[in-house]
């Protein structure tokens, strides 16, 4: 019995060691090449090179970064249907995330993102600092800004754009440390999301 267990765990370790490098390969998003994001029909055309992380926060989400997700984090959410959370729930039963619903109004999208961040990260300090009507993916949408302190105690700022199209939520968020990184990459985020089409 023990011997079988040992062999089995050795085999699993070997497989894990062989497959891990490919599973963790991050993507290179070359400039001027249109690319689909978040496994959806949403496409963007970057004007500078980006990295796409292979670990995605959710089935319908994808993260891009320049220097690492803790320094600049662009996350696309595409086609979130009513009843679904924005990101993968670590425990559906014990720590459920707030869900997008068919009644969710555009003005409530910041609250949805706030609830998701607070629940997932267990943070106390988060505030929405502004929200305005905006066009995103050629539809009426919302652009909003927020501040929060992440678990690493670093104050961060964020900007997000969202639209509800055919009952599904499409959104792009940009999060970066308040000091230097947010202002340094904000324009890149705006240009990137301006290029988004469905």
């Amino acid at each position, binding site marked *: 019995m023990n011997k079988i267990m040992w062999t089995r765990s050795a085999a699993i370790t070997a497989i894990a060691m062989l497959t891990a490098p490919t599973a963790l390969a991050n993507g290179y998003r070359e400039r001027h090449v249109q690319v689909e994001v978040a496994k959806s029909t949403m496409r963007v055309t970057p004007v500078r090179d980006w990295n796409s992380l292979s670990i995605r926060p959710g089935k319908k989400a994808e993260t891009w970064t320049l220097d690492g997700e803790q320094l600049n984090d662009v996350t696309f959410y595409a086609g979130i249907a009513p009843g679904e959370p924005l990101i993968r729930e670590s425990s559906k039963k014990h720590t459920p995330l707030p869900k997008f619903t068919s009644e969710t109004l555009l*003005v409530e999208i910041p609250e949805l993102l*706030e609830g998701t961040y*607070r629940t997932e990260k267990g943070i106390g300090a988060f505030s929405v600092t502004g929200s305005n009507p905006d066009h995103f993916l050629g539809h009426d949408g919302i652009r909003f800004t927020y501040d929060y302190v992440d678990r690493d105690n670093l104050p961060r700022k964020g900007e997000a754009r969202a639209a509800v199209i055919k009952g599904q939520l499409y959104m792009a968020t940009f999060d970066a440390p308040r000091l230097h990184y947010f202002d340094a990459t904000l324009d890149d985020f705006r240009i990137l999301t301006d290029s988004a089409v469905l």
Partner: protein
Amino acid sequence: MRKGVAGLVATTVAVLSSAAYAASNIAPLPPPYIGAYQPVGVDEIGAWREADEDERMLVNSPIVIRDEALNAYVRQVLCNTVGNDRCKAARIYIMRVPVFNASMSPNGTMRVNSGLLLRMRNEAELATILGHEFGHFERRHTLMKWKATRSATDLLSWAQVFAALGNSYQSHTNFNDLELSVYGRIYRFGRDQEREADALGLGYLNASALRPQAASAVWQNLMNEQEASASAKGVKKPNFTKIAFFASHPPEGERAAAMMTLADPAGENRENGAARYAAALAPLLPSFLDDQIKLNDFGASDYILSALAINGWTARLLLARGDLYRARGNPRDLVQAAEFYGKAVEVDATMPEAQRGLGLSLIKTGRRTEGQAALQRYLELKPNAADAAMIKMLAPAAGGQ
């Protein structure tokens, strides 16, 4: 020499406390305070240095709540509980973390979470926690736990070497058994320290002007909250009498019962300082409530709100309840949310957030015109709101936009 005196004092205290325990189960009065001490030995000096470094980071942390009045109040409760001489050894930091917790470092840094303050119902309950944490500090538990863990894991490292040398299935099995028993001991050691700190905390409370029976309520309320949370999520209720193998604290059921036994019956008629506590917390209550509501733990949040509303639902509590129901967002929740916001507006018509919540939930339940009227009142009350432009789209003023 100093070591000798300290040792003598410690022995005397130990003898006295065990005698008191023998006479009854009531927690003994706190031993005389030995006074500020400096760390002794490499282990303790090292632990203090680490704690000092953590504190340097903590001082500048953006999540420390710097509200002067609240800090002064919590400090006063600690001083009243453990006495002015002991109190000087502690520096309190109130953290904006919406979780029930408090801790104390070996150098006297006490951290108290905002989530804990939200859950306490009176001064005596707060004093229970502060006294408990101070008890850990006074008995230098962190250092002892660290030492115990180190020697236990040292043992494991050696055992691993021998198991590898033996390299038979039997030696691996033996090693696994040893590993389990060593880890079991580490966690049991932790639980025993918690029990000691509970007893010490109750000792302070028995000697204070507050009602020591409140201590038991802390754990009772926590159990009720966890039950409410589990029932709203539809998951199995936690078992409060079972000790999990890796649990660092005794089960809540045991603690609630133990606290009741340790409390001095003579203190039954003392005050618990509920009014003072509510007054001290009032200015920060809205933000603490907001932090809790947005954690998306429906059952726990509803339980906390109902507990706070024991003397009646205030506009602020009704607003929070509306937010809670609107966030969950089932159709029946939205109807109830509109009702709670409506009541909040009845109590206080000048609260912009209640008008906003009322407007949004009415629109979502199909009562568009009424909803728009509430949103317009929101804009009148808070014309510079961060979301004013978005709200204007939902509720265009007469004459259009």
